[in-house]
């Protein structure tokens, strides 16, 4: 641990400035990620943490790693996360009710385990180890150096990982696959005409067109003066955003009241 402090103390000035500016931001963002209520904010803060990490990588001469971190994690992975979160809804914040029994102790245990693992790894990486060989590794250029290692020494591991990823992608596709037959627009229109009734071939009646009020929540009136229930969007009906249609009808019942 002492060694690490020494390292930090002896870093050159621009790097030290960068560290002391960016590191608190990264840590604050990481804490914020855990503490904010809305899931989208949390995802955004995570994206920010990833970008700061990328900046650190670049500052440590790992240019390729830094850029790829932004392209892959910030650009692709986090974006997919955001996608899902957004589709869940604008106002949804996490409910704090536990559904699975014993989830809390299990997750605490897992978190402690992961923390211990990370700590021991970091400790091994920084105590009594002098980092050497960066310049030799980067002599031919950072990208070339990585390519050299990746496609000679670690080519087997690389291929295994790619096979794993492809398997995962295929698995996801199989799980998400549904045997729905695709119907083309032409097929749909032909079907509409063939279904017998020509009344709805041109689409459902628009709301309120023949009624006294031209609003989406007011039903259209049929020739006999009664309301056409299909003229109002099912969404509005489900939400309950719909006015009682009886007063708008021209049916005898209304006229009798008058």
């Amino acid at each position, binding site marked *: 641990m002492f060694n690490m402090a020494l390292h930090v103390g002896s870093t050159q000035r621009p790097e030290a400035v960068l560290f002391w500016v960016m590191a608190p931001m990264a840590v604050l963002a990481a804490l914020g990620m855990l503490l904010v209520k*809305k899931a*989208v*904010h949390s995802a*955004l803060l995570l*994206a920010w943490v990833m*970008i700061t990490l990328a900046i650190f990588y670049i500052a440590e001469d790992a*240019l*390729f790693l830094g*850029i*790829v971190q*932004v*392209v892959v994690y*910030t*650009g*692709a992975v986090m*974006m997919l996360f*955001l*996608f899902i979160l*957004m*589709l869940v809804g*604008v106002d949804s914040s996490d409910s704090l009710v536990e559904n699975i029994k014993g989830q809390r102790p299990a997750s605490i245990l897992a978190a402690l385990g992961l923390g211990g693992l990370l700590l021991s790894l970091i400790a091994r990486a920084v105590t009594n180890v002098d980092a050497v060989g960066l310049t030799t590794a980067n002599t031919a*250029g*950072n*990208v070339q150096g990585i390519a050299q290692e990746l496609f000679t020494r670690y080519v087997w591991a690389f291929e295994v990982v790619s096979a794993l990823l492809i398997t995962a992608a295929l698995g996801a596709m199989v799980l998400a696959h549904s045997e729905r037959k695709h119907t*083309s627009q*032409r*097929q749909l229109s*032909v*079907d509409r*005409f*063939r279904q017998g009734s*020509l009344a709805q071939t041109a689409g459902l009646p628009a709301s309120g067109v023949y009624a006294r009020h031209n609003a989406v929540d007011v039903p259209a009136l049929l020739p006999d003066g009664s309301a056409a229930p299909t003229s109002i969007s099912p969404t509005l009906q489900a939400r309950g955003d719909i006015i009682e249609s009886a007063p708008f009808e021209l049916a005898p019942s209304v006229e009798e009241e008058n």
Partner: protein
Amino acid sequence: MNAASLIGNDPGWLIAVKGLIVFVLCVVLTLMSVWGERRIVARMQMRLGPNRVGPFGLLQSLADGVKLALKEDLIPKAADRIVFVIAPVISATTCFMSFAVMPLTGKVKLFGHSTVMQLTDLPVGVLYVLAIASVGVYGIVLAGWSSGSTYPLLGGLRSSAQVISYEVAMGLSLVAVFIYAGSMSTSDIVEAQQKWWFGVVLFPSFIIYMISMVGETNRAPFDLAEAEGELVGGFHTEYSSLKFALFFLAEYVNIVAVSSLATTLFLGGYHALPGLGFTESWLGGWFGMVWFFAKVIGFFYLFVWLRGTLPRMRYDQFMKFGWKVLIPVSLLWILVVATLRVMSARGEPRAVVAAFTFGIVMLIMAASSLYERSVRNTSIDQIPDSSTEPSFPVPHVAGINRVESINESNG
């Protein structure tokens, strides 16, 4: 001395000056391109376009910008305020950042310093541009989500799905360039094109890049994110005043950015057109910038031309095209390019290379003729139960005999 070491010698103030030049260039180009687009589209539609403010209406976009800035700035009640404000800022800042690695000139003198007109030269410059573009998508997605309204959300999701998908195709089209140039640095790629432009050598990559750059910038015919008939204004429906102006700025700067990247990677960057190489030394090397921007403006004209000519594509067809056509084609093309590269690196005899190329061409022709045949067959099969005659008049479709069915129902 190459570009990277020249840039490495720049004093701090020179970097600041260059940054300023790049920024000003981008903003002025945006103003000019908004005006240019309106004038060109007007010409294509037999109108005059803006011609009142300033000579030829040149100051029209300036006036529009001032008007936008003076408008009322609304934030919807349902909006997520912080994200709503951050989103346009992300869009407008990231779009400028990709210009940092664009080589605008070769070696020139700037305030007595020998340098190149390029802010920085990264060994992974092109990947950096892709990274910046992928961060820029956040602006769109967040704008759509934070507006707290349905159309912007749908528009934001649509456009980000579109940008991400077409970024994949774009990235793949760039791989062939990397293989040929042997580098991912923009200045090295430009230098590698002194003899032949990659737009000629790697023509399929060039085509794929051009298609995906239109998809990536959300421009017509791929402007589904703001399909006004379906989604009002797309992700920026709820934006007004300066925040909207930022999105507007970002859109045009992005167009210039992807055009610049296309120029750099495929059309020889700041190098002159073939046969006009002597012009490159004019004005002490600064004339390269003229060539660069001439090419960029050429691409911009292409954008406007597409907008003036083509109707908007349907969303599912567009995504299908990206994933099922562009990406597989570019993967196959990369395989071919890599094989050719290995062959030339190993010094294989010309006959082998020619035989390989011929074999590839034959394979493509065989595949395309098979595909066409299968399309013809399925299109005949597809006609729905043509045995049962419809009892009403329908538009003529191959396989349904319209005249007879009418006659039958009449008789």
